[in-house]
């Protein structure tokens, strides 16, 4: 993630140049495939394709690593929980008292990988689409501007809140706050950080609301114009066709 308060990573690539609506369609198509086809082969194929697209977009390896790191707990926890509680398939007895379900663990792993793939698809759009262009793209899809603004601000504020959390954590540790330990004890120790971030978040929201109002946001009967324009280029029609054909193929293909 860059430090400018957005997920966008500026690079010169065909993925970046593609129309934001086409990229959004790609996200929707891949999500549909991942939700409708519960197959390891298809999930791995999608994951591979998404890694190829991230590399084609010349995104730094750290950005790919960021997604894997963020989902690592899920990749461990979901198969673990499914192996114990799912009741899928024949159980194996471990240590005489514990029943584990290998098939359940596999099912859990598939679920976790599908979630990771969905995140990769979403992040491809976020990493490669400039916020202004993203906003205009969504408006062109006839989504009301206030909704689009709320969405883009929410995205914008995830890194901002993350940065706030980091600064607050530093400030409290500099006053002797110890964060070692685990579980409930750690949560209790983190209260000075969490409360400060919450107050900071509320303050940020309040200031943002006032700043928007002070700049005439929400005035009735005004037709907005946009600095950035998005237009379909011939390449975008080609991408569109490829996405539709590819999605249809992935939805219909029979795999073992």
């Amino acid at each position, binding site marked *: 993630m860059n430090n400018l308060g957005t997920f966008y990573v500026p690079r010169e690539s065909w993925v970046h140049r593609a129309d934001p609506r086409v990229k959004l369609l790609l996200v929707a198509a891949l999500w549909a495939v991942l939700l409708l086809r519960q197959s390891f082969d298809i999930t791995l194929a999608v994951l591979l394709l998404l890694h190829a697209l991230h590399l084609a977009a010349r995104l730094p390896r750290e950005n790919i690593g960021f997604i894997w790191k963020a989902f690592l707990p899920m990749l461990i926890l979901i198969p673990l929980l499914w192996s114990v509680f799912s009741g899928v398939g024949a159980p194996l007895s471990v240590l005489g008292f514990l029943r584990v379900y290998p098939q359940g663990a596999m099912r859990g792993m598939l679920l976790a990988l599908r979630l990771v793939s969905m995140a990769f698809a979403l992040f491809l759009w976020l990493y490669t689409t400039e916020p202004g262009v993203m906003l205009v793209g969504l408006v062109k899809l006839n989504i009301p501007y206030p909704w689009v603004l709320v969405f883009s601000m929410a995205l914008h504020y995830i890194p901002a809140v993350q940065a*706030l959390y980091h*600064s*607050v954590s*530093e*400030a*409290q*540790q*500099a*006053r*002797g*706050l*110890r*964060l070692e330990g685990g579980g409930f004890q750690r949560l209790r120790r983190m*209260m*000075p*950080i969490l*409360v*400060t971030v919450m*107050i*900071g978040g509320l*303050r940020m929201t309040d200031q943002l609301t006032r700043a928007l109002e002070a700049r005439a946001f929400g005035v009735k009967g005004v037709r907005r114009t946009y600095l950035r324009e998005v237009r379909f280029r011939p390449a975008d029609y080609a991408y569109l066709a490829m996405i539709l054909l590819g999605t249809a193929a992935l939805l219909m293909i029979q795999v073992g």
Partner: protein
Amino acid sequence: MPAVSLQTRDLTFSYLPGSPVLRGINLEIAADTFTAVIGQNGSGKTTLMKHFNGLLRPASGQVLVDGEDISRQPVSELARRVGYVFQNPDHQIFSASTRAEVAFGLRNLGLSEGDVQARTDQVLEEFHLLPYAHRQPATLSFGLRRKVSIAAVFAMQPGLLILDEPTSGLDWKSTQELLDLLHARNRQGTTILLITHDLRLVADLIPRCLAMSAGQVTAHGATHEVLANPATNGALKNGLPPVHQLAASLKNQGFPANVFTVDDFGAAYRATSESLRGDAA
């Protein structure tokens, strides 16, 4: 807490690979000194200061606090000796009352309840915060929140106190009051490092100065010498106090280059007038 000395040896650091923010800093800050840290935005001031309480660790080189390498000491442990006041007071205020906010760090140090109360009362009085002792600090004005954040670190009585732009957002009177408190603490034996962009404040009230540019220390020593140093003077030219610029424009009338305060200007004016009178006679 006795005053703390600092040393760095070939200290380098970068947030991103290939973009060094600190480039081989060798520095000695003696105990008991009061030093302003100046330099343009992005020169590495805050990054350097965060190495002194362990919030950042060197990519290479060493940081020594009282001659001891601190690379393995956790931030919470260093907090006993090194106090750090952050630029934004809202990054630390969370308690339900100003009193509890000030007491937070003291309890982290494991002080007895009696000591916590005594030190809290003393600092609230020093900072004129007693009327706000039971108010929620998050609801106070920005200037008061700034005071609370400084008071909370003051109360911990660290041997080294680092303040990151503590006077931004304060009026001149509050700034002078704060500087009075810092000087008093410095006289009692606390080493102080204060990051600021206010060169008038530096010239008027802070005896020593450390100038940084592009991740390196360009000058370090007595404030007037550092401000007169061509490397510092050139880089910070437009930020120097107006009285310096006035004196520079009167160079042909015999005004010296090292005029940074109104007192300096008065002395230079008297000297120039006497010399002119002497010439006329």
